[in-house]
Every structure is written in structure tokens, then in C-alpha cells.
């Protein structure tokens, strides 16, 4: 780690400077010791927060034997992708299929949320109609309903719709949350109303204004919402765990929870499954880090 290797090189110099005295060298010494402390702190954060992930990746490249041993090595003694091979098309744990299922569900739900939430948000932000305040209040109130209140009845509703154990069950109900509507409504309210007025006065209809003026201006908000929806759906565990049953129909998260019993001590395969489920979201995060963090902090402060 770079943080710790800095230490011996810089510490003695600090002492020498201090011994020389003088305000300027003292200042510099303080700056050096500050950067040493920062480096140590940063190194600690990296070890604590990325260490477990590094361990997951390292284990996934071990042989089944090595991963089951109590003798532990960070670098696999004989790196292999067999763990991935075993886990990708195991009949009892078809991780490749789960990956596709998750991708389809998360993408479809993001699109569904973008379409429905943006339209509703536009109406709530810009259109005047009877009962708007009441509707806004009701939709807002449901943000405070804990998800557990919906679990059992939604299971029954999804059964009535014939969606149990199907893709629809993990795409549609989750798109009903009020979060997207409020997220976009806030953004639409912040847009200057004059642009829309000008377009309306030029004879554009509501739809054209919405499609040609409002949506293009809202690209960053739409992208953030799509990203957050995708992440939430990709990582959802409780709901798909109960509404999907057949091995081939599972998504990644509930699927992963069955790896333990399927592969028992073959930790390489289990961790390979974890890596497969994490790589897309970590890449997503690495690319659009700013968006995700900003989106989360803004959504966090929405209430």
C-alpha cells in the first residue's frame, strides 16, 4: 500500500526540520506530518472499504480446493477461472441466466419509471387541474408507507394478475413508487417556465412542449433517475426472493442466496457469483460516480 510505504521515508525528515527550528521549517514540517496522517487515513479507508471486495475477487480466482482451505492467501497460488466456469452454467445455479434476467428486469423497470414518472411529474409540476393538491398530497404521503406493509398484499395482487414467478413481477410493481415522480417534479419546477410559455404561445401543444422542450432540458435528471432505478432493481432482494421460484427465472440477488447451499465449501464459485453480480454496478458507479452520489444525496434530502 502506498500509504504505509510513505511512512519511513518522510518521518525522519520531519524530525530533522523540527530540530533546525525556525517558523518556516516548522510550518513545512507540520504540512508534511499532515500529509502523512492523511495518507495513513486514506490508506486505512481503502483497506477497510475495498479490502473485502479485493478478497472476493481474489477468492474467485482460486481453485475450489484452495478456497476451501483454512490456509489463506491473498494471491491465488494457481489462478484459475474454473470458479466462474462452474458457476456460470451450473444446472442448479444458472448464474448466466440470472444475469440476463436481472439485466432485462432492471432495464425494463428503468424505462417504465422514466415514461410514467416523467409524465405524472410534469402534470404535477406544470398543469393546473382540479384536485391537484390533494393528489400531490396522497402521492407524497405514500413515500412514508414502509414497504413491508405492501409485501403480502402485493404478492396476492401479483398472483391475481398471473405474474408470480414471471418477469412482470419484478418489473412492474416496483415501478409504482412515488420517488421518481417527486424527484422529477422537483427538477421540472426548477426549469424556467418562460421557455414552455414561448413554445405554447407559438402554438405547440402540451405534448410537443413536454417532449421537445421539457424532456431534453431534463436529461441529467432523467439519467440520474434511470441510474438509481436500475441500481435499486438490480440489487432488490426481498421481493424477488419471494415472487420468483423456478431456478431459471430468478434474478441475481435471490439467485446468489442459493449459491451457499449449491456450492457449500467451494468458496471460489460462490465468490465468482458475487463478482459477476457486482461488476456491472461497480463499473456503472465508477463511470457515473458524481451522478450517483449527487442523486443519492439529493434524494436523501428530498423529505
Amino acid at each position: 500500500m502506498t500509504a504505509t510505504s510513505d511512512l519511513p521515508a518522510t518521518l525522519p525528515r520531519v524530525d530533522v526540520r523540527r530540530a533546525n527550528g525556525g517558523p518556516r521549517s516548522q510550518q513545512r514540517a507540520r504540512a508534511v506530518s499532515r500529509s502523512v496522517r492523511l495518507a495513513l487515513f486514506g490508506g486505512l479507508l481503502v483497506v477497510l472499504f475495498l479490502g473485502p471486495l479485493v478478497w472476493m475477487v481474489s477468492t474467485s480466482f482460486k481453485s475450489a480446493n484452495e478456497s476451501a482451505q483454512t490456509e489463506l492467501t491473498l494471491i491465488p497460488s494457481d489462478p484459475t477461472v474454473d470458479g466462474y466456469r462452474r458457476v456460470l452454467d451450473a444446472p442448479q445455479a444458472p448464474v448466466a441466466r440470472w444475469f440476463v434476467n436481472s439485466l432485462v428486469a432492471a432495464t425494463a423497470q428503468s424505462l417504465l419509471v422514466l415514461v410514467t414518472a416523467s409524465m405524472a411529474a410534469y402534470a404535477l409540476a406544470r398543469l393546473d387541474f382540479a384536485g391537484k393538491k390533494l393528489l400531490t398530497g396522497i402521492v407524497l404521503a405514500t413515500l412514508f408507507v414502509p414497504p413491508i406493509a405492501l409485501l403480502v398484499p402485493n404478492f396476492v395482487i401479483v398472483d391475481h394478475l398471473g405474474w408470480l414467478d414471471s418477469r412482470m413481477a419484478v418489473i412492474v410493481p416496483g415501478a409504482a413508487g412515488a420517488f421518481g415522480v417527486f424527484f422529477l417534479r422537483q427538477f421540472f419546477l426548477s426549469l424556467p417556465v418562460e421557455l414552455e410559455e414561448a413554445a405554447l404561445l407559438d402554438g405547440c401543444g402540451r405534448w410537443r412542449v413536454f417532449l421537445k422542450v421539457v424532456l431534453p432540458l431534463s436529461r441529467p435528471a432523467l439519467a440520474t433517475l434511470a441510474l438509481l432505478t436500475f441500481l435499486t432493481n438490480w440489487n432488490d432482494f426481498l421481493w424477488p426472493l419471494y415472487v420468483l421460484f423456478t431456478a431459471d427465472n430468478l434474478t441475481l440477488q435471490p439467485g446468489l442466496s442459493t449459491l451457499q447451499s449449491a456450492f457449500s465449501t467451494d468458496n471460489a464459485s460462490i465468490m465468482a457469483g458475487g463478482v459477476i453480480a457486482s461488476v456491472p454496478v461497480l463499473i456503472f458507479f465508477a463511470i457515473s460516480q458524481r451522478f450517483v452520489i449527487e442523486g443519492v444525496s439529493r434524494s436523501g434530502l428530498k423529505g
Partner: protein
Amino acid sequence: MAETVAATPTRARWALPGGRGRRSSAGGVNSVGLGTALVFLAPYLVLFGTFIVAPVVYGLWISLHDWDFLLPGKPWVGLENYVELFTSGSVSSGPFWASMRATGIFIVLSVPFLIIVPLCLAVALNRKFPGRNLFRAVVFAPYVLGVAVVGLLWRYLLDPNVGVINHYLGELGIDAIPFTTDTPWAWFALVVPTLWWTAGYNMVIFLAGLQDIPRELYEAARIDGAGPRNQFRHVTLPGLRPVMVFVITITILASANVFGQPYLITQGQPGRETRTAIMQIGEVGLRQFNMGRASAQSMVLTLSLMAVSLMCLSFLRERKAKR
């Protein structure tokens, strides 16, 4: 809140139909018939009605029946499911209240760490130094993982026999610790992964809150001779109060909803000691299909969660009023 922003222009327009007045142009072009508005609202309202509003009512309805998912008859039993829940020694009350107790223990053990650690990280990473955005991203990164990955990973790290943590403790001469199978260690095995997973989220919200504290307050404090510790106590903490109440509220609620960690890491062990309320409701309602009972339990949990949020909200209001 957003409400106040939207409310003012709306009310102005209602008062002056036809849109003559101060905000004439906005009012005029924005007044539309219910029809147009409905077209925009309809797709979302179908989803909202079916999967948010209907289940709230339906859940209450189910809880008043002996609702076995697999049986055709679902007889009305009135409040029996609730009475049973509050009768000690009945089939459903013992396991349910044990799971509520486990949930309470998890809240008490996890929330302080989930507040203090992210707060310290936010204060540390709010200072200007090269690479601080990278470190923020590093701390936040685990949050983008799913709970199943977090569960599998920590189940393995904390494994009593082949886990890496016991391995290194062993090298320090410490005997293997039964992290996933015995209390109090099982609580450690639930709190630490949760902290690792979600600390970054709370940190990001604290960071946003720190941006709202005026720089001048720190300067004034410095001129008054306040060191870093006093600045933290007398400027940072008071300035963060609204954000703090918010973070505490969402953290308590998140911890009350804990499911994946005990499901995957401790599997409720030892015995049923770490089986939390959501695990119990899922088990009763969606594995044993005793949906009436499970719905009654959901209602009790829901009401307690809402009571917690209301308490926190009113606490926030009170503070605001005092200022």
C-alpha cells in the same frame, strides 16, 4: 419541503381563473382541462393505484381473515389475528415478539455506529486535500452492491472455520470466534457488514449538510479562539441538526427493515435469536402462507415504524419552532 414551492403559484392561479393577475401568463397557459392532465397522469396512476394504494387497503382486509393462500376458503375472523398477536402464549405472538425484540436489539446496536462513523468520515473528507473525491467514492462504493453480495461476502469473511477474519485472529493467538452461530458475536456479524455497506450513504448526506453551514461561522469561531474540537461542537453539530434528525430517522427505519443480512449471514441463528421482524413476516406469510397472520404482523410493524418517523419529525419541528 417541495410543497411550499409549488403551493404559492397554484393558489394564485386558483384565485384568478383565466389567469389575469400578477402571474398572468403562467396561469393562463397552465390551466388545462382535467382531461389533458389525466392523460399525463393515467399511466402512473394505474401503477400507483394497483401496487401502492390497493395493497394498503387490501393488507388491512387480509389481516381480518384467516387467509391461507393455498386454501379456497378464507373465513372472516375480525380482529382475531390481532388479538392472538397480543395474547401471550398463542402460536403467533411468541415468535413475532421475539423477532420484534431482535429487530430492536439490531437497531440499538447498529444505529449509533451508523451515525457516528459516517459523521466522522464526512467531517474528515470535507477538508480540502488531494484525492478526497476518490476517498469519498471508496467509502461509498460498497453501497452500490446488493445485499445478497454483501451477505455472501461477509458470511465467508466471518466464517468460523475458513473465514479470513478468524484466520488472522488465530495468527494473533486468539481462538476462533463463532461469529455466525453464537450471540453476542452474531450481532457483530450483522452490524459490521451493515456498517461497511451503508456508511457511505449516510456520509454523503452528512457531506451535503456540511455544505450548508456558512463558512463565516467557522471563521468567527476561529477568531474567538475555538480549536477544531470546539468548532465541531459549537458550529458543526448545531449546523447539522436538521440533517442529523433526518439521518437518524432514515437509519432507524432502515435498521428496522433489516432482512438480507440476518437471512444470509446468521440465518437467524443461534436458535431464532437474530431472526428479525421482516424475516418472521416473510416466513409466516410467504413461506407458510398464513397471510392473515402475517398481514396483522405487518400492520403492527408498520404502525410502530410510522410512530418512529412521526416522533422524529415532530422532534425536528419542535427544534425549528424553538429557534
